[in-house]
């Protein structure tokens, strides 16, 4: 689970080169949100 979040953070870091603390935190939260969204999507597909 953390891997996806780290991956998202790394991609953001590659985009920005330098990130402030707030940006890092936002990217981590975004990563978690994406993860939740993807899991929900997967569940949805299996239900159908």
């Amino acid at each position, binding site marked *: 689970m953390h*891997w996806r979040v780290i991956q998202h953070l*790394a991609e953001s870091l590659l985009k920005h080169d330098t990130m402030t603390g707030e940006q890092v*935190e936002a990217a981590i939260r975004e990563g978690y949100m994406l993860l939740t969204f993807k899991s929900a999507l997967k569940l949805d597909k299996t239900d159908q």
Partner: protein
Amino acid sequence: MKKIKIQLVHLETDQRQNSMGQKLQAIAYHEAGHAFADWHFHFKVKKATIVPKDDAAGYVESKTACILDRSNTPTLPAHALAACTSELFPCWRDTQHNVAFAPAVCGLFMLAATVTKPPNYCLGFIQRRKYHTSGVISKRMQKISLRIRCTGESFSISPNHCLNTTP
């Protein structure tokens, strides 16, 4: 069993990686590992960058809350760290043996070492911020060992060590 050896010298990249893009990616993953670990342990991240500075290819600046108390015990409880470490392993298996993940794991484990090892290592590690790290990862990603050298002193950590650490 074929082993992949990864060596990082204070955030410098693996020389075997050829393209610039791959190097940058490795640095970004490594720094992301640091930043994530800091965030996870409620250390305030101030800055994360992949812009080279001095001998570092990138760095993460954070307010480290791991301060030793009067009995030289780190303030961060080891069981919290053990929980985080155990959470990490399923993720490791999910990476489909992606070598780029190693720098991130090294980053996380370097932070882990500051808390699980005896106080003198913690101090040395945090204050000097100069270390050599090498990780040996088996092909199946089931065994990880990490060696950290800090100005003459060296020690190894492995997942089992972290998980068995008692507060």
